[in-house]
């Protein structure tokens, strides 16, 4: 359906003609390929999300409100997105307009004393971090990295990342929200709703944080968030990251109170024990199993390629034969990265001692190859800024995670053989078919502190493929289906590869209700979705969102 001229004119009057388009080529830029990344469905070869009816660039909450009211008047769906990192932010159905929040990109306030920032939707992690560092503060950067919207992560999704153990999830950091509700009313949640400032999302004032966020965030399906406040954390480093080097091998030489280590362990049990050790000791600023995303066999070579500007992917086979790289790769077999940041000289001294003691107790080690200065300084910058997160896609352009194990560190290590090794062996068999990158089975990336203060780890087994290649894309899909079956038979349940199957189907559109209901009914807590149904009936009476907001009748 094309918008009637009357409706289009009304929308145009709200945002001005230069901020609206229904040109087919423009609209095709707002379609996401389901042959791609981190959508947790598919991949489906050459399938795209539906074309919206128009795309609008609102410039204020008032404009958003006017658009949403108009949508309610004419029963038009709307979907807002800020940085468009994945399929969540794109239309699921016809009769949907796309809101691109790009023009709302200001850091409205950065309160050094009270340690929070108020941001608009298109403020990205890199810019907020850069501004926060100027005043000795830092912001949590969620998993997708520095390119992504802070607000979207905090309001509409889970928002965890490598520094979560120290800086929490973004939803935990949420101190206030301005919400254009699905019916077009504006609600300011928390203390800001009472005119008391942005310091607390749970009051004094309307305390609807839980409702606003739903179970894991609204995924852009319940109104539009136009401002939010985020808690900031201490940063004991320089006001500007001192970056040097040639691209892409940028490095940061930081003072001695900030160090990056790659830790290796002799067994998965030792690996898990070390996680408990660092949480118990309360050390670590960033802790993540990061470079494993390149695969157990390839990560050493990839670190070399990425930290040396003279290298390219074409060097990978040669590097795999390099004895130094082979040794480093083997040392990193059961690994994770940790950044220590001491607030004082005594603090870093203590953290270093605690880490050494943990390594002594577990038989672990600091991977020597990663202490080579260029690699250390590259790794340090990588982990602090997360400015290279789309290396996820470095091999062929496509990746997605499967299995998606999450829980205490033992969840991946306690079975015999260890669950992580079962998954590795299973994936290795599929790598032999040739459709996914042969990376050694274990390409499991994830947080060592999957919640504030530690307490859980999360792993997502990266599977790399070529979205331009039909056999590779479809072969990956077959592997993911097999991975799901494997997980179900093992009693682990479906993995991350099917995380969004309830919302969007293989045609890129909303999943059929009967399939959606079956998936949600089989989940651990279906009642939560029944509760969300009530919320949706109350706040979104015209059902102008999509199925990413999970509901059950």
């Amino acid at each position, binding site marked *: 359906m094309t918008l009637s001229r009357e409706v289009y004119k009304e929308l145009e009057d709200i945002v001005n003609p230069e*901020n609206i*388009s229904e*040109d*087919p*080529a*423009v609209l*095709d*830029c707002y379609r996401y*390929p389901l*042959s*791609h990344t981190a959508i947790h469905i598919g991949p489906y070869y050459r399938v795209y999300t539906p074309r919206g009816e128009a795309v609008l*660039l609102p410039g204020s909450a008032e404009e958003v409100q006017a658009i949403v009211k108009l949508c309610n008047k004419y029963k038009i769906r709307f979907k807002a997105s800020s940085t*468009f*990192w994945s399929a969540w932010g794109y239309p699921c159905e016809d009769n949907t307009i796309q809101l*691109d929040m790009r023009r709302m990109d200001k850091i409205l306030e950065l309160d050094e004393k009270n340690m929070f920032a108020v941001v608009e939707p298109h403020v*990205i992690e*890199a*810019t*907020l*971090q*850069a*501004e926060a560092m100027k005043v000795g503060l830092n912001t949590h950067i969620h998993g997708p*990295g*520095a*390119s992504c919207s802070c607000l979207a992560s905090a309001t509409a999704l889970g928002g965890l990342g490598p520094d979560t153990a120290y800086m929490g999830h973004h939803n935990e950091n949420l101190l206030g929200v301005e919400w254009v509700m699905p019916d077009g009313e504006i609600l300011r949640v928390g203390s800001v709703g009472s005119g008391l400032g942005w310091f607390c999302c749970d009051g004094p004032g309307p305390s609807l944080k839980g409702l606003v966020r739903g179970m894991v965030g609204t995924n852009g399906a319940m109104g539009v968030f136009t401002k939010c406040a985020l808690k900031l954390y201490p940063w004991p480093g320089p006001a*500007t*990251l001192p*970056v040097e080097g*040639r*691209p*892409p091998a*940028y490095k*940061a030489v930081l003072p001695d109170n900030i160090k990056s280590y790659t830790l290796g362990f002799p067994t998965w049990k030792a690996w898990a024990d070390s996680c408990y050790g660092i949480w118990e000791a309360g050390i670590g600023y960033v802790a993540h199993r990061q470079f494993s995303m390149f695969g157990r066999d390839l990560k050493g070579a990839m670190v070399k390629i990425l930290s040396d*500007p003279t290298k*390219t*992917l*074409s060097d*990978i086979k040669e590097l795999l034969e390099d004895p130094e790289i082979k040794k480093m790769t083997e040392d990193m077999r059961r690994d994770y990265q940790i950044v220590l940041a001491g607030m004082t000289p005594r603090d870093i001294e203590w953290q270093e001692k605690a880490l050494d003691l943990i390594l002594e107790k577990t038989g672990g080690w600091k991977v020597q190859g990663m202490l080579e200065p260029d690699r250390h300084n590259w790794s340090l*910058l990588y982990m602090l*800024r997360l*400015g*290279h997160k*789309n*290396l996820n*896609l*470095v091999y062929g*352009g*496509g990746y997605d995670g499967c299995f998606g194990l999450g829980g205490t560190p033992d969840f991946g290590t306690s079975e015999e053989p260890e669950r992580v090794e079962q998954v590795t062996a299973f994936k290795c068999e599929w790598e032999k078919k*040739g*459709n*996914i*990158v*042969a*990376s050694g089975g274990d390409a499991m990336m994830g947080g060592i502190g999957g919640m504030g203060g530690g307490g859980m780890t999360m792993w997502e087994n990266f599977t*790399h*493929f*070529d*979205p*331009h*290649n039909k056999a590779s894309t479809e072969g990956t899909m077959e592997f993911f289906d097999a991975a799901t079956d494997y997980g179900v038979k093992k009693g682990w349940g479906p993995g991350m590869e099917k995380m969004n199957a309830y919302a969007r189907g293989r045609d890129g559109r909303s999943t059929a209700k009967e399939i959606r209901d079956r998936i949600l009914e089989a989940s651990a807590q279906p009642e939560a979705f029944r509760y969300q149904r009530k919320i949706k009936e109350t706040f979104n009476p015209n059902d102008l969102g999509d199925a990413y907001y999970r509901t059950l009748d």
Partner: protein
Amino acid sequence: MALEDYKADMERCSQCSYCKWIPFDQVKSWRFAKGCPSIAYSNFLSYSARGRFAVALSLLNGQSTYTDRVVDIVYKCVTCGSCDVADKICRYNLEPLEMIHELRFRLVEDGQLLPEHTAVIEHLRKENNMMMKSGAERGDWAKGLDVKHIPGESAEVLFHAGCRFSYDEELRETARTAVTLLRDAGVDVGIMGKEESCCGGRTYDMGYKEDFTRLAENNIKAWNAAGVKTIVTSCADCFHAFLRLYPPLGAKFEVLHTVQFLDRLIKEGKIKFTKTVPLRITYHDPCHLGRQGEPYVPWKGKEKKVKNQIVVYEPRKPRYNGAWGVYEPPRDVLKSIPGLELVEMERIREYAWCCGAGGGAREAYPDFSNWTATERLEEAKSTGAEAIVSACPWCERNLIDAVSAAGDKMKVFDVAELVRQAI
């Protein structure tokens, strides 16, 4: 290569949006974090490299057709290559800047033209310059200059003034200065005067590949006939054309930008400073000297896969990502001038913000072009500098115009001009 050959890139583009920003590691503030002037000005995703991949794919797949908006998307880009650098932080198998050029070539082939470009190109075909001026006046910039004229005389080094320096009366003193500095340092330098022709670089960026090829082949023929071994130019656009675009057509000349030659002469002691230039300056990296000024490496090969699905190239493909552009020579020259204080802007080297003059934007989209230059001016002012210095007449013209439009007091210099002041 044809546009269709980039379909793999279009489908492998992960829509990560890195192309819109400077490399995230280099972000120092909210204010100066953006890298792509096109989307920063026009806002729709379509005006980014990611968007242009999608637009091209949509056209190739027949999902959309040429509209005024599509033409606007394709041409409202300064072809500065910022997207190319940012994309290649994480990717080794995407070529967004090459694809943008191919997309323009296709639009030109299909007659989807901008009247502002057409006027310039039609004039170029008659008068061999991009300045809408008479070809007969091309050598006027060198009147009274004691320098050899090629091909009547022979010289080891040919100084190519380029269209802007030849005709822009406010700027042409820089070209005269460059020639004088080289000559006085003992370099056997000559010029072609009114026999000089446009390099074609800007023609290429506008999408007129055939016109570029004609100009390049004519220049190569003329230089070969004159026995020229080394080409020196003060124009970054010409430099890039000679360095990167001419070799595939058979050119085998040493190509140097004036700043490289001056840096060499200063380090060899052939240029000595006798005066102080008390000025706080900042340096603007021209895109075609900086990130696009990497040495040309011949390559002919094909894609292959290792480890099942890792996309590599056989033989090893040169990687142009701005890592090896011309960054140090202009800085070294400036740092060597007594009294000058060089303060850096936030966006420099391979992640410098463009001046806005490139890709035909100055000709077709003066508001966009001026906005881009004004953004750079704001960044320069944030350093506390009294002057912005560059090494390209197109950058300097756009910055001078932005200063004028803003009623600002920032001075604009070429590197060579400051060298002259110190002698």
